[in-house]
């Protein structure tokens, strides 16, 4: 199969001539998915399989006085009932134990309390009603600012705030107060000719993956455990099982199934331990599949936030000072994404004086999980409206204002590190040159907005092996779950190194018994970090094969080279073997060749990917309905290994961003009930609500990667809400200080209702 090279001219020059990278082959497994042959979490089936269901708290905040499971245990068809008492004593972190099966308290509606394994899911469900739980209901606290007040109800009596000053003496819902300071913010504001300050609130949003969490556990007679689960990372699930079940890691095999979306939400484990506990007690394999309402009530939303931003600029257009306060809802247990929100909020700009305060705050809602560029979207929604307002007040074109102030190589971020080479300027210039930025809007009640966002790459740890087959094909294994088509991009990098065509490389995702530790597929790391491991494995293969050629030819190995076409030796120009010819000789020259790549990508200096988005929206001023008419997303991706897949990531991120901007949110009643626990009322946009998104790929190679690859998957969601808000401002003259910007909110801001 030969696929055409990408036709479009990249923004930077081609450094080397590439044969595989930059082409658009079909993704591994895509046809299986289209034909319904891919095996997802809920598709796993085993002989003697039982079905598990979870009893969940109806209260947002309550003390558990007693749990009586006796009637459920006696119900015909029930094989096992488990509660927190079935977790091995002292195993694992308390918050992880409690979020798996509640101990003394329930902290959100949907908090798991007990689980039942039965002959059918229906029997298990019926038996749930027979579990008698006595509660002492407590007042819930649902809003981040309320939770920060001194007299707010406390979720955890022992939680005390960590800050730079150490740990506070008294209990609080604030788990952490973090702070970054650069320069002298007070002096900076004193220098400013224009200062803009605004506050913003955003609601929790669910990642909205379509496949519910599903896990199947099977205990073997030797006491080892196999778990099939849909996850973004089989190894983190293994670690989680090992710690909560007090079981050696080697005795657990986690098999990742195909995954029907995750977006960060499947970086957390919810039902794996429950399935394992039920299976152990029942003595039979157990599958637990969550329902949609369980997913929406009890799994990973992204934090709701309160964000205050203040920025000052001089008349000459330079931003001289900035200040932000980010208060993030962690949900029931500490650990919101406020850290990366604080890291990202001013990331696009070179600001001499700045201060960022971040607060990680627990509230009576589910424990939050990562969501595509965790913490960044609300922060950028806030800061990009303030930047837009500064530009307007200074009468400078919004894009020019960003060009004037954007970060460059060497700019030190407010949070510390100086930037390596990143294409901030190139992205802004490409946006400015794009016809979308200057073409007329073409109708009334329309507005155009832009926003600038950045997301850093995490490289993480990855393993990859490549085995050479006698026919010259290779089998590649990685521990990275294929959430985004990244497996194909990883294999393309190996193929490039090996001088093979992609069809000669078969890549597969390995289970945890078959490869070394690999981090979750998340953080824009997979094509970058696991790609590096694949390159390392490929280079290892080539090194070993050079040695085999040397042995065959009786020449020193240093004289043998491989130019991705043939192995040759400088000693004897008549000797020449292709990869395939040499592969056929391996058996006779010492046996199989297997290359390995195992690395910690974070020892490399970190880059990231900036994106500038341009949104045209139309407002129905009578109903408040907003339609996105045209959307262009310009992004530095380093190098697009598979341009089609990169474009898919950009389009998907923008679609999710539009959902977050206009439709989606987790809405809670005063008692902490989730009011929209269905996809009817948790309004993910449909294809009809999303315009044709035009991705514009800018390639400023990341110097730490042999092919210049940057992580590209998360940046595309970051600027969307900000760009739409800025477009709405052009129509309404009002700044949008809330997400989602629902029709009712827009009408309220306009003073219509």
């Amino acid at each position, binding site marked *: 199969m030969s696929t055409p090279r990408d036709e479009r001219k990249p923004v930077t020059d081609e450094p080397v001539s590439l044969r595989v990278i930059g082409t658009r082959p079909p993704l591994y497994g895509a046809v299986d998915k289209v034909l319904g042959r891919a095996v997802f979490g809920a598709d796993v089936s085993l002989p003697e399989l039982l079905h598990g269901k979870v009893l969940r708290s109806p209260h947002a905040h309550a003390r558990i006085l007693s749990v009586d499971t006796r009637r459920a245990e006696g119900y015909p068809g029930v094989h096992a009932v488990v509660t927190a008492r079935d977790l091995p004593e002292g195993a694992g972190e308390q918050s992880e134990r409690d979020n798996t099966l509640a101990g003394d308290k329930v902290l959100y509606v949907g908090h798991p309390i007990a689980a039942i394994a039965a002959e059918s899911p229906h029997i298990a469900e019926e038996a749930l009603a027979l579990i008698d739980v006595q509660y002492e209901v407590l007042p819930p606290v649902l809003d981040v600012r309320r939770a920060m007040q001194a007299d707010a109800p406390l979720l955890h009596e022992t939680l005390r705030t960590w800050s730079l000053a150490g740990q506070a003496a008294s209990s609080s819902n604030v788990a952490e107060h973090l702070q970054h300071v650069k320069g002298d913010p007070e002096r900076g504001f004193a220098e400013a000719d224009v200062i803009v300050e605004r506050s913003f609130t955003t609601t929790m949003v669910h990642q909205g993956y379509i496949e519910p969490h599903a896990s199947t556990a099977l205990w073997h007679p030797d006491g080892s455990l196999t778990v099939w689960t849909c996850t973004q990372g089989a190894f983190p699930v293994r670690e989680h099982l090992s710690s909560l079940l007090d079981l050696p890691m080697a005795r657990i095999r986690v098999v990742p199934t195909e995954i029907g979306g995750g977006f960060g939400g499947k970086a957390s484990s919810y039902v794996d331990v429950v399935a394992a506990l039920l299976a152990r007690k029942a003595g039979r394999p157990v599958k637990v599949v969550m329902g949609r309402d369980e997913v929406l009530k009890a799994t990973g939303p992204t934090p709701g936030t309160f964000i205050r931003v203040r920025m000052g600029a001089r008349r000459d257009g330079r931003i001289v000072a900035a200040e932000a306060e980010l208060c993030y809802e962690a949900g029931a247990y500490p650990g919101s994404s406020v850290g990366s929100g604080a890291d990202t909020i001013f990331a696009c700009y070179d600001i001499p004086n700045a201060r960022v305060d971040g607060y990680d705050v627990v509230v009576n809602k589910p424990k939050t999980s990562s969501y595509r560029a965790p913490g960044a979207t609300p922060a950028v929604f806030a800061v990009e409206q303030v930047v837009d307002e500064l530009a307007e007040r200074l009468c400078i074109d919004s894009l020019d204002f960003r060009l004037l102030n954007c970060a460059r190589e060497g700019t030190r971020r407010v949070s510390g590190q100086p930037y390596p080479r990143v294409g901030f300027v190139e992205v802004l210039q490409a946006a400015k040159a794009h016809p979308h930025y200057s073409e007329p809007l073409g109708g009334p009640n329309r507005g155009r907005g832009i926003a600038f966002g950045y997301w850093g790459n995490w490289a993480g740890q990855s393993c990859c092996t490549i085995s050479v087959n006698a026919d010259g094909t290779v089998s590649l294994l990685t521990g990275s779950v294929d959430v985004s088509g990244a497996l194909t991009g990883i294999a393309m990098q190996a193929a490039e190194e090996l001088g093979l065509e992609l069809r000669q490389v078969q890549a597969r995702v390995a289970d945890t018994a078959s490869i070394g530790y690999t981090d979750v597929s998340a953080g824009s790391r997979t094509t970058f970090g696991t790609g590096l491991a694949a390159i390392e494995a490929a280079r290892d293969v080539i090194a070993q094969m050079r040695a085999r050629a040397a042995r065959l030819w009786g020449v020193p190995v240093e004289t043998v080279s491989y130019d991705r076409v043939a192995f040759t030796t400088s000693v004897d120009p008549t000797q020449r073997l292709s990869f395939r010819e040499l592969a056929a000789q391996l058996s006779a020259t010492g046996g199989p060749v297997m290359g390995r790549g195992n690395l910690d990508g974070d020892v490399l200096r970190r880059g990231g990917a900036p994106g500038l988005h341009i949104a045209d929206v139309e407002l129905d001023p009578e*109903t408040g309905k907003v339609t996105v008419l045209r959307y262009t997303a310009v992004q530095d991706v380093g190098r697009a290994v598979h341009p089609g897949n990169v474009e898919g990531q950009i389009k998907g991120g923008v679609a999710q961003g539009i959902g977050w901007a*206009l439709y989606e949110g987790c809405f809670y009643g005063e008692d902490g009930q989730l009011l929209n626990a269905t996809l009817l*009322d948790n*309004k993910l*946009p*449909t294809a009809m609500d999303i315009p044709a998104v035009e991705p514009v790929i800018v390639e400023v190679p990341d110097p730490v990667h042999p092919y210049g690859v940057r992580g590209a998957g998360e940046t595309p969601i970051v600027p969307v809400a900000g760009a739409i808000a800025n477009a709405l401002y052009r129509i309404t003259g009002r700044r949008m200080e809330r997400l989602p910007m629902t029709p*009712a909110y827009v009408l309220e801001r306009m003073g219509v209702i």
Partner: protein
Amino acid sequence: MKPFQYRAPTLLGEALSLLASAGQRARALAGGTDLLVQMRRGLINADLIVDVKKVFELNRLDFDPSDGLTIGAAVPLCRICESPEVAQHYPGLVDALSIIGSVAVRSRATVGGNLCNAAPSADSIPALIVHGAVCTVASREGTRQVPVARFCTGPGQTVLGPGELLVSVRVPPPRPRSGARYLRFTPRYEMDIAVVGVAAWLELSEGLTTIANARIALGAVAPTPLLAVEAGASLVGRTPSAAAFAEAAALAQSIGAPISDVRGTAAQRRHLVGILTRRALEGALQRARGAEPDGRQG
């Protein structure tokens, strides 16, 4: 979901006997796009499910210029929307039926199910009301006629007693110089539920200069879809004009008891009734004059 009996009779009498035999514990099943969802969520428990899709009387879709349109209760919406006669004579009805759910939902969902599910936001009901549609209801005891405007009695509640089945809905023949329009407001383009729905029907006098007859019906502003009697009456005898439509819209806004919930606020709903009433009247007027309004849904 609890176990239940499933029967799929082909004769109306058989269906009625089955329903009578199980009383309150029996449920008719048409497309199942409401029923199955509600059973899964434990909101409905039934011992006997009577699938009515194979019953002849419930599958009729007949148009007769003097008799009007008869829609069997189990006819899937897509079949109705694809009918050239329905499109020609009842475009205001197509407005409503063609936006329910998605293509997949409409290939199963029925007008009978939409009526019997009796959601305050059900899209077909305001449109059927302004067309003056009448339900035919049968039980082992016999048959009765109930105007659609009186069919729903509360959220999920209808006039149907135990053992009664909705057989069909009859829409009167189209009147010359009349036109109808249904509009709803939803945040999403499709797969969404009306925050407010408004249907309007107008009949013009012979010279096309005044309004001879008008009906307006509202969805999602009260426990049942409402016929806005005064709003409609205010238009009779008047020249169609912005002022007349604004007055009718204001009267429509004054009825009902919109609530605030996760789908919208009371103030937003009242506001939308005004906007959509005006727009629906404008669309109905265009149709009464033989023109086709723009493609907007809300």
